[in-house]
């Protein structure tokens, strides 16, 4: 079409192309602005985002004990570490760790280690919170799904998981009350 009319009247042809291109562009914008709400509605809704923080009272958590709380639908591990566990965590050489991180960078109060209890491999919940649980070779947590071993600081020491157990953002509201998220 365009080759034929180029010789005849390419000024009009240019106008026509402009109309066609701007029509397609407007239709494209219209379609995109209809599709976006349909996609975005699958993101967390306002009420889901509003539930994003949890408070935990640690006053009844004895040394050596652990509790699991739910935060954003996921388990959060809180363990009151013994002196020996703290020592282990602090003295381990980080050089040969897969995801080297000092214990002091992972805690606010060294007595309490707070972790997102989701294995960084493929998302199972590691064992180690209950007294009878298998805790793995490094005494922290052990993921039964594909055998990841975590130490007393929640760092990956052996097995397929690529990174340490995540530390959620939290703050101490008082000595024994923390707010996660």
């Amino acid at each position, binding site marked *: 079409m365009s080759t034929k009319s180029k010789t005849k009247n390419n000024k009009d042809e240019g106008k026509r192309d402009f109309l066609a291109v701007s029509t397609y562009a407007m239709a494209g914008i219209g379609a995109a602005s209809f599709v*976006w709400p349909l996609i*975005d*509605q699958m*993101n967390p*809704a*306002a*009420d*889901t985002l509003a539930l994003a923080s949890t408070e935990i009272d640690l006053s009844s958590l004895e040394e050596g004990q652990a509790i699991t709380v739910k935060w954003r639908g996921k388990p959060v591990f809180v363990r009151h570490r013994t002196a020996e566990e703290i020592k282990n965590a602090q003295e381990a050489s980080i050089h040969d760790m897969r995801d080297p991180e000092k214990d002091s960078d992972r805690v606010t109060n060294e007595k309490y280690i707070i972790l997102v209890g989701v294995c960084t491999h493929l998302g199972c919940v590691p064992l180690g919170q209950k007294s009878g649980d298998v805790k793995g070779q490094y005494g922290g947590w052990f993921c039964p799904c594909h055998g990841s071993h975590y130490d007393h600081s929640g760092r990956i020491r052996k097995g397929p998981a690529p990174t340490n157990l995540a530390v959620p953002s939290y703050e101490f509201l008082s000595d024994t009350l923390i707010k996660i998220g």
Partner: protein
Amino acid sequence: MSKAKFKNPVVKWIDHRLPIFSFMDHELNHYPTPKNLNYFWNFGSLAGIALVTMIITGIVLSMNYTAHVDYAFDSVERIMRDVNHGWLIRYIHMNGASFFFIVVYIHIFRGLYYGSYKAPRELLWILGVLILLLMMATAFMGYVLPWGQMSFWGATVITNLFSAIPLVGESIVTWLWGGFSVDNSTLNRFFSLHFVLPFVIVGVVILHLVALHRFGSNNPIGIDVKGTQDTLPFNPYYTIKDLFGLGVFLTIFAAAVFFFPNFMGHPDNYIEANPMVTPAHIVPEWYFLPFYAILRAIPDKLGGVLFMFGSIAVLFVIPWLDRSSVRSSQFRPIFKIFFWILLADCVLLGYLGAMPAEGIYVILSRIATAYYFFHFLILFPLLPYIEKTKPLPISISEPVLSGSSPASAFAFREKK
């Protein structure tokens, strides 16, 4: 079937094995369409787009909806307040239902005016009425889902219609409810059916289109296409015309969604369902009002239900009730007058359906109902014996040459 030539080797390879591209080329590109169609022929494609819009927004709403009597109302409120763009999606679905009915009602009256239901398009018409029935069932059950007061009492009243059936009526109603009142089981089955029926409609629409493409569209003067001089290829002529109509439609639709989203709804449906208290005045959605008026016009329970369903049933047999061989009202002077009376009658029924069932409204409802059935059952078969139809043009192209009918002015402009 004309063999289409494709340049793209991938398209060619696929088309040789699965002739989907030839099919589309044949049915959407070259498809010969009468050249004199007016804007009333836009409403079929608009209905198709409305259906797709309803399905898309419906699937998305289902992702956020909870079909349980304790949570349904709150989950809809959550869609309105918390879900990202939830208000927009819900308003599109809500108003989409109304606009779908507007479009389909215009589409049907177009068929009545131009005699599109006549041979050889009887099955096309019947499939259309079937779509209308399915749409009504779908819309009714959809309205129950938000579990507001109108949802609940609408569901109660409509399901109770079946109790009018002698002997087994009560058992049927219990069966429909899955209990002894409209309750959680009812809500769950309505959600299931409301989800699936639109896909059944898609299936019937496909049959509707297969039947349409068998003989092609009717046209404003209602005479058969005589040859290629009477037609235009669907693309680009009618794709552009349909798209232009779509633009106008979407502008109006968007205005309703953004500025008057609750205009066609009822405020009582923003009150959570309460099985202990019926609202003072319950009315169905506007698109059911004419049928509701017929139901209430008859002073007998079973009779009301029969007349109401009869008002749709009669549409199925219209192709055989109308005994005139002239299709378009343009050549049927008396039929044309009665067409407008029928349209006014249906609008009046709609108005009466929204009024309380007392006094003058009841009397008017009876007259309007009587006219509705008179029109189809008596006028349609008898009129051809009385009416003198105008002479038909020889072909669609002929009025262009004689320059006599209104269609010619249009055709003339187009030729230039």
